[in-house]
Structure formats: C-alpha cells, structure tokens
C-alpha cells in the first residue's frame, strides 16, 4: 500500500575489540591498564569457578549447574560498569556477574549444592538472589527503579536475562512500564543463541532482539557480547543515561552458550559441532589476551600467576562451602513469614 511514513528506526550494533585483539580506538572506552587487568582477572576467576562447579557436579557435590562458559565478556563487562550503589537483578546463569560484584564464591557453591543460605546476600552487596523462573525478574528491576526514582537515589538498576527470556509476558510488561515511567533501568540480554534446545530464530522472528525496545519507546542496541569493551561501554553509557534521568536502555549482547544448557543437558542432541567450533574462535578471553599482550599487559608469567591465584580462591571457596554445617531443620520454617504461625510452631514440634 502506498502510505505515508509516520515513524522510523534503525538498530545499531557496537563492535570494538575484534577476534585478533585489535580495538577500534575511536570507540574505546576510557579504562586504565589496572581496570583492564582486573577485567581479565575476573574472567579467569569466573572461568575457574565455573570449571570447578562442573567438576563438583560430576562428583555429586553440586546439583544441576548452568555453565557461563563463553559469556564472560557479557557478564563481567557489564557488571564492571556498575557502581557499588547500583542494583542488579540477575537471572540464573550470572555467576560472572556475582563474582565481579564481590559476591563470595563459596556462597554460590553453597546455593548450587541446594542450600538456600547461599543466597543470604550481605547488606553491602545489592545484587538480588538468582531467579529461576525465566524473565520474571524483569518487573522487579522495574519496581526497584520506580522506588529509586521516587526516593531520589541517583542509581541505575541492571537486570539480566537470556534470549529465551525475551518471549515471556513479564519481559513485555516490565519493558512497557520502564518506557512509560522513563525509569533508570538497563536491560541486558545475553543472547547466547539458545534457550535449552530452542535456537534464537525459533524464539522470535525479529532479526535482532535489540529492536524489541522500540516497541516500548526507548532505545535498543546490539553489541558484540564476546567483546568486553563493547559490553562495558554500552552498559556504562546506559547507566549514565539512566542516572541523568533519560530513561531505560536495552542492550543485546550477542554471544554464545559454549556449554550444555546445564549439567542435566546434552547439547549434542540439538546443535552441531561446527556451530560450536565456529564460536570457539570468538572466545572473549582470547581476544582480550591478544589485546593486552600487544599493550604489554599480558605475559605467560602473569597468566600463570592469576591462574594460580584463582585456583587458590576457588579451592578456598569450595572448602568453605563444604565445611558449613547442614542447616538445622527448624530453619526450614524460619523465613516463611517474619514470625512463625501457630500452625508452623505445631509442625516444628513434630507431627
């Protein structure tokens, strides 16, 4: 139909650091050498954590566990852009985010071993407990942003979810409210191309996920999710925009789930080795290392040192997690309500 155009959009994509470790200097965010090394060390630590979790699971020392392998740049790059006062609402795969924000690794192991005490976040870390029902944390971030705005707190709220999460009604209702109230939220989608066995193109027919933001009257951008500088820059800019009062931003981190969905899954059933291999070239750690090497920030010795350091931290965390005494059965009742109900007291005393 010949009609008149009443609105138009373009979806942008940000790439800074390529697979060879070469950065587009014109786009490069301001990061000190120390920052960059810290980022690298957090990737190594997260990967060490993750690898150990998979081992522990195999040995029956953890329950089902979702690996973050391949998504380190998306997680650490974005979390690194957060300030202490910002709030984070993660999904369930964000161990890299937790670690970057200073969450004690032993508590993560404790949680994945089936002990909810691992989620008792200390008061100075404003990251919310893991969220298992996909996408349902998005309205929480929106509500927290309403509250922060109402209180006049100049902070940003960050929430994480996957490509699968974009299909949920709560994604829609949350995004829509964020748009209407122009809230200080940064929505980060780790588009890792898979939701268990459902590939990205069967999850939604839109060419990008980023474009979904325009349905809610705010901006969406796609970034190379395996490029920590792009992720960092996009998040940093979005947080600044949020704190300026200019509303929400949606960032699609284009990345890949290198591992099985969880330890209960077998991805070879539904995806090809070729696809996985192709993504190996895009490893977020590889390109950062090449970049640092060129800048003189990386040496074999450095690598050995931080690997050792990470192993030490993780050894310690496992030991600590496993030395915690099992919870007392009465604790099962303690957090239902502020006070026990008479019926609970009766139940606690034994049938």
């Amino acid at each position, binding site marked *: 139909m010949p009609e008149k155009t009443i609105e138009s959009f373009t979806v942008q994509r940000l790439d800074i650091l390529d697979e060879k470790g070469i950065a587009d200097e014109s786009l490069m965010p301001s990061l000190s050498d120390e920052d960059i090394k810290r980022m690298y060390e957090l990737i190594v630590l997260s990967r060490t954590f993750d690898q150990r979790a998979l081992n522990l699971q195999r040995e029956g020392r953890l329950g089902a566990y979702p690996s973050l392998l391949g998504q380190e740049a998306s997680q650490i790059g974005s979390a690194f852009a957060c300030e202490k006062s910002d709030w984070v609402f993660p999904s369930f795969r964000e161990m890299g985010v937790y670690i970057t924000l200073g969450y004690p690794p032993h508590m993560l192991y404790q949680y994945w071993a089936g002990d909810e005490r691992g989620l008792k976040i200390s008061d100075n870390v404003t990251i919310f407990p893991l969220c298992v029902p996909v996408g349902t944390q998005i309205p*929480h971030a929106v509500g927290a942003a309403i509250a922060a705005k109402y209180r006049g707190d100049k902070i940003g709220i960050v929430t994480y979810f996957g490509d699968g999460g974009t299909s949920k009604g709560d994604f829609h209702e949350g995004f829509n409210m964020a748009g209407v109230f122009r809230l200080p939220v940064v929505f980060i989608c780790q588009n890792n191309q898979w939701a268990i066995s459902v590939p990205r193109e069967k999850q939604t027919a839109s060419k990008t996920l980023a474009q979904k933001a325009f349905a809610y009257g705010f901006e969406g951008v796609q970034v190379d999710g395996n490029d920590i500088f792009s992720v960092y820059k996009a998040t940093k800019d979005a947080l600044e925009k949020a704190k300026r009062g200019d509303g929400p931003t949606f960032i699609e981190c284009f990345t890949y789930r290198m591992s099985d969905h969880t330890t209960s899954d077998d991805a070879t059933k539904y995806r090809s080795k070729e696809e996985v291999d192709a993504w190996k070239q895009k490893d977020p750690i590889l390109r950062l290392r090449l970049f640092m090497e060129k800048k003189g920030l990386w040496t074999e010795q450095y690598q050995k040192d931080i690997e050792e350091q990470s192993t030490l931290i993780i050894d310690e965390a496992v030991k600590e997690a496993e030395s915690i005494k099992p919870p007392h059965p009465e604790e099962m009742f303690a957090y239902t309500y502020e006070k026990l109900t008479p019926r609970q007291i009766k139940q606690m005393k034994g049938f």
Partner: protein
Amino acid sequence: MPKVNMVQAINLALKEEMQRDKSVVILGEDVGKDGGVFRITEGLIEQFGTERVMDTPLSESGIVGAAVGMAIYGLKPVAEIQFMGFIYPTIDQLFSHAARIRSRSRGRFTCPIVVRTPYGAGIKALELHSESTEALFCHMPGIKVVVPSSPYNAKGLLISSIRDPDPVIFLESTRLYRLIKEDVSEEEYTLPLGSARIVQEGKDVTLIAWGSMLHRVLQSVEGVDAEVIDLMTLSPFDEETVYKSVKKTGRVVIVHEAPKTCGFGAELSASIAEEAMLYLKAPILRVTGYDVVMPLPKFEDYYMPSVERIRKAIEEVMKY
C-alpha cells in the same frame, strides 16, 4: 465518629497510612485521576501526587511484579487489581516471588506488599467480576489473606496489612462496599492479622464465615443459639478461636461463596476433624457456592449460599 461505608473506610486507611509513612505508595489501573473503578482511591492522587499514586498500564503481572521490586527496595506498595477475576495473571509473581523473597534471601530481603482486590458476587456484574477464589492464596506459604466484613474492621485490618512485613492479599467484597455504614474512628487503630472475632456467642452451633457471607450468616441464625465467627484473616487463620468454639458447641456450619470443592471451608473442616473430632456431635457442613463456573447475573441468586440454605444446614446439624 463519622458513619462511613467500606469504600470510605478503606480510603481512610490508605490516606492515614500514606500520611504517616512516606514509603507507602499506591499503584494500579485507574487508581489515579479516576480514583479507582470503585472510588477507593478517590482524592489520593490530589493529596499525594502522581509519584505516590501511580496509574499503570494494563498489566496485572507487571503491577504485582513491580510492587515486589519496590518492596525489595524498601517501599510499601499497595497494589490494586481491578477485580479478583484479573488476579490470575499475577499468581506467578505472587507465588514464585512475593511469597518467597524472604525465604529465598534468608531474610535479607522482604516483600511487604499489599494486593487489594474487590471480590465476590452480589452486584450482578460481568463475567470474571464476581470471583471468590480466596482459597488458592491460602495454599501458598509466605502469603497472608485478609477479608474484612465491615467498614470498621476493613480500616483496622488494612492498616495492619500495610504495616505487615510480609505480602498480604486483601479481599474486599464488592457487595459490602456500600451496603453498611459503621462508626469508624479517624484516629489511628489497627486490628491484628490472624485473629478471628466472635460476632455473636452461642452454645449450640458454630457458624464460620468471612466477608460478605458473614452478613448472610447473621441473617440466618435467628432463633438459634449460634456462635458466629468472623474469620477476617484466612491465612494464617485463628485456629484457637475456631477450636474453642467448636469444642463448646459440637456442631459446625461453614459458609462461603466460592465453589465447595477445595474452598477454604475444606481446610476449616479438615482442621476441625483433626483437632476437635471428639467434641463433634454432628457432621461438619459446608454451605457454599456450587461446583460450577461462576455464573452470570441471571444465575447469581441461585448460586450464592442463601439464608434458606444456611438455615437448612443449621437445622440439619441440630438434628444430632
């Protein structure tokens, strides 16, 4: 003391709590300029502004989900769901989240939200405008369920619900909104959650009801030495008051407008059968809505527990 109806009493409770505590905010559909479809929030946006009385998009799950986030951050949101028939899309946020925030975070975070919603039949309304599915919410540990039966207790219970540190579903009978006026103090007062009230003492039979059915029960007990209990809080319910009465009378009739099967009457009856069996002289009877899809107005009178049906049940248990 002014004589007010339940709409006014609830409005008063909201106003007083908002004055007292800046962290109390309201959100929902049409709660602002319109003052809510039942006028519960009338005047509040004028007094407290759009930051504290938020008209939201048409998004029930989003409303409760946002309320959860606000509560986590430290506010005390009071969310309105326009009718109980539209609370179903919020069940995921209520059961998967609101109920579990304290438990999941081992007390680091809490979820002091109130979800107010008009419930029940009796105003000849459209489909899904007459639901009474309170029992669903009583099966979810971590959630409290409160149902006032009069302007006076509506105010006191709502204030307690707002101050409660845990999520509360607050059900307001549409039929009662404008039916009765009562003296309601403009002074602050609260009524404790989890406590039932003996509306009338008696020796021969215990009648248990809540919300609008309480009034039908009171109309039905004439000429009977009946003890009438207004439960007020369904979850957690006041076991002690119930058992004490039942042990005295030995006969029980429970009345609710929800369908019989798995209604809250089932829990009451089962609890009594467990705790006071030896005192019972007669079967425990439930007078309830029928096990049918809540019908449209033409069937409404037939569906609702009538005075006649309640009387018949009382006569029945009195035979023993």
